Each structure stands twice: as C-alpha cells, then as structure tokens.
C-alpha cells in the first residue's frame, strides 16, 4: 500500500483570509466563544445547499481551527442551520428538530435568490433567529456569521 500524500504539510491548503461580516447578526453568544456545534437541516431545498455543506467542510476553510464543528444530532447542537425555503411537509419535522435543541441555541436561515419553491421559513414565526441569509453565494458568508455569533473578531 502506498502512503497517502500529506500535502497540507508542504503546501498550506487552508486559506489565510479575513471573513468580512455578511449581513446582520442579531445575537452574540458569549458562551460559544470556544466552540460552536452546527446541525444543518434541509427543509426542501433543491439539494444545492446540501452540497454547499460539503464545500463548507473543505480544507480551504478549515472550520475546526475556529472551533466550529458539525454535530450529528440536534441535541448536541448550538446552532441550527435551516437550508432553503420550507416545503409544506417539512414544517412539522423542522419544529420538532427545533424542540430538540438545548438552550441557549440560535437559528440561521439560509436562502438563495434563485429559490422559487416553498415559503420562507421566516413566515413560520420561529423564535431565536440569529441571522437570515437571503442571497447565499459562497461558504465565506456563513463562516463570517458563525464567527460573529461566537463573538470572535475577524
């Protein structure tokens, strides 16, 4: 068996850059200064946002260096990332998932300008919405919001 190339040692894969805050963030959680656990939920988007979640975990962004991790269950999460506009049958599972979140928690809504189906989650009257991204374009937008929520200056 060949050894895997550890390219990260020779060439730095993680990008050195500033993440300028995109949009507005309504709450800053001082208790999440050291780590933030995220749980993404698809509420009926066209699968493009789900692929972006994979892109968000790529070595270019290296989220772990900020203490940002993806949780495997909403019960272990600090932040719920709601992806897309809500499809009617997903409204109840979304509420159930929010009920599972331990307090204090925040919710970030992510939508694209190109979305045409479903209704905006904001219309469901959900509490604890920390940020609302209306025109998602690239992962850096979300990272800037996570960092702000954690009270980190970047």
């Amino acid at each position, binding site marked *: *068996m*060949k050894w*895997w*190339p*550890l*390219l*990260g040692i020779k060439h730095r*894969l993680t990008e050195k850059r500033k993440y300028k805050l995109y949009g507005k963030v309504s709450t800053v959680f001082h208790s999440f200064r050291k780590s933030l656990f995220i*749980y*993404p*939920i*698809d*509420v*009926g*988007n*066209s*699968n*493009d*946002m*789900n*692929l*972006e*979640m*994979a*892109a968000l*975990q*790529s*070595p*270019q*962004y290296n989220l772990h260096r900020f203490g940002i991790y*993806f*949780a*495997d*269950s*909403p019960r272990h999460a600090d932040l719920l990332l709601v*992806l897309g506009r809500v*499809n009617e*049958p*997903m409204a109840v*599972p979304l509420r*159930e*998932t929010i009920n599972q979140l331990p307090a204090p928690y925040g919710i970030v809504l992510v939508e694209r300008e*190109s*979305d*045409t*189906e*479903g209704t905006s989650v904001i219309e469901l009257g959900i509490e604890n919405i920390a940020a609302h991204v209306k025109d998602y*374009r*690239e992962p850096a937008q979300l990272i800037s919001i996570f960092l702000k929520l954690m009270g980190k200056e970047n």
Partner: protein
Amino acid sequence: MSEGSQIIVADDGRVALRDSLKEENIPNFEILKNRDSRIGSDEVFGDGVFDFRYGPVTSGFIESGSFHIYTYGERMLAVNIDLSTKHRGIEKSCVGLPVTDAVRKVENICGNFAFSHSVAYSRAVESALAIKPTETTKKLRVIGLELERLYNHLFVATRLAGSAAQKVLNAHLLYLFEEALRVNQLLTGSRNLKDFNSIGKAKPLSTESFGPSIESIGIARYQLSRIQERLADLYGRSLESENFMDRLHETATLNAERAVAIGVTGPSLRACGVEFDLRKSDPDYPDFKVVKMEQGDALARYEVRCLEVMESARIVGRMLDSLYKLGAANVHPVDIELEIPSSSGTSVGVCESPTGVIATYVEIKKGTIVDLYISTPSLFGFAAMREAMVGQIFTDFPFALDSFGVSFADAAR
C-alpha cells in the same frame, strides 16, 4: 402527456413516444405510477423484523427524504423510499407560464443537476418551436454539462471516502470539490451553474464582475488540469487502499439485466457493462470515449465516476483551449436578443446528466406551457438502489446510497 404513454430514449439520442400502452408491457410501470410519493412497497413481517424509519431529519444523509428499512438485526430485508417530504410539484407549477419563465423553475428541480435540467428543457422547447441554437451556444452547453459532471462525480467520491472513514482521501477530495465549484463560479458566475443557460442561448463565459474574461479562462484551464492531475494520483492511491476496497467491492451489486428493466442510466448502468451514453453519438463531442466497468458493484460505480471526471476535465480543457485561441471577441459573443415565437408545438428534449438521462416532455400552446413531464434519472437510480440493498447489512447503506449518486430533490421533483 396522456396516461399510459411512454418516452423511449435510444442510445443515439433519438426519442420515441409510445401511446396507450398496457400496464403489463412496461416493466417499470409500478415505479412510474407512484413517482410523486414513494418507490417500492415491499413489506416483510416476522419475529425480530421491524420497520426502521430513516429520515427525513438525520445526519446520515442531509436531504429531507426518508427510507423505510425492514431489518432483521443488521441485515436489510426490504427497503422502501418515501419521496413525499421532498415533492414540490414543480412540473405542475410550470403549467401556464411563458416558456422563458419556466427555465429558472426547472433548474430548481435539482440544484446539482440544474444545468442538465435546463439544457433538457431548452432542447425540448427549441425543437417544439423550431429555434436553432448557435454553434457557440452548443459549445458553451458542452462546457456546462461537463463542469456539472465533474463536480457531481467529485462529490460522490468524497461521500464514499467519508463513509469509509478514509479521512485523508476525503479531505483531499473535498479540496478538489471546492476547487471545481470555484471554477464554475469563475467561468459562469454561479457555483452550481444556475442561470447560465436559457432557451436558444447560453450566457457568455465569465461575466464582467469576474475580471477580464480571457484571463479567467486561462486560470480555469490551469485549475482544471490540476484537478485532473491530482485526482489521477488520488484515484490510483485509493485503489491500493485495502480498507477502502473492502468496503466498496461487491457492495450493492446491480446486474445489467435488472438495471435495464428498471430504467437505470448513467454511470450506474455503465458500471454494469452496458455502453449507454448519449454523448457517444452527439456531434458536439468529437472523439468521445465511453467509460464502462463490468462488475456493477459500488466499486465499479466509483471507478466509472472517477474516470469520467478525468474525461470531462479533458473535454472542457480542450474546449477552453480553442476558445482561448480564438480570443476575447469570441468568448464574449454579441448578446443577440432571441425572438421566442409564440407558436405551438410538442417535443421531447434529452440530456446526459451526471447521474443519467433526463428526458423532458413539453407541450406548448401560443408560447405558454400546457403540459410538462420530466423523467429524472434519480427515480430509477433509487429504484435500483433499493433492490441492490436487499440482503446487505446496514453498514453498507451509505455506500449503496452514495455510489448511485441519486438525490431526493431530483427523484421527487
């Protein structure tokens, strides 16, 4: 489209519509009939067997669809798929819209096949209304389709490596995946190629906001060759990793006969040894080589996809080279305002998406859509997957699911 009629797509891209067929003459009738709500309705009862519901909110797969898995201990005895939470009824909501407005809605059927869906739809509308796309448009569409195949296949490889706990391979592939999305952004202005194609024309490459176009083509060309090079290296290494091979080899095997009966197309069919690819006889693809494997298991599908990434990078690279040589004037063709005639017509458009053939049937009356029916590859992919999973243990579930490259959004529409 009237009930009981069937779209048949031949190997060379020819399409036939057959009317008033009898149920028993269509082998995949059951799948097509319930395509809005579920795939499969097998039930298994007995001591120790229970119906395990997986989804729509789980960390195993992110999409909002669900599986009903009848398990006995670790072994899966039957798998049914529930599409109802993802069904958005996009086809119906397009009825009554002008043909140009529906393109953006059709793209939202499946975000990661957005370009393929819009191309299949545009081809249907163009043939129904007798609109002839220009040669540049045809070239740009080939570039879009191959870029889409490239990032989707990389995503599947990433998922497989992640499920097999190959952390290093997973990280390297994720790196390439993000690079591929950035190439899309650089060339088309959108990471998932949305809003790049429209009826009769495609947008010129790299819009002004992304710098001088000819430079960005050079950068994209370099990035693609790097992706191709690095994937070739990673692919070779992954085939030597016994751990990884052990997880994929003979997992979720599909045989060619069943694959054809279900209606599977794309890499999953080519991995069973069937040489079916619409690009083979497409004049826009000169000297195209079909990639195929014989075994029909998850490993064969992984191999087909990895080899296709390299083939796609080669095709796009060559096209970008020819555009680069022609100079900036040809990359930025004058934006012709295309007249969409408000006439009537009926036609079918087909396209080879990353996961298989998309066939779009459209009926137009005075420039507005009267009927739209879209046959998506994921529906058949899911149907094949649920058959291939039977008898496997639950640990094999992610390999079966990811290796088919299917998505709920595409299957449920």
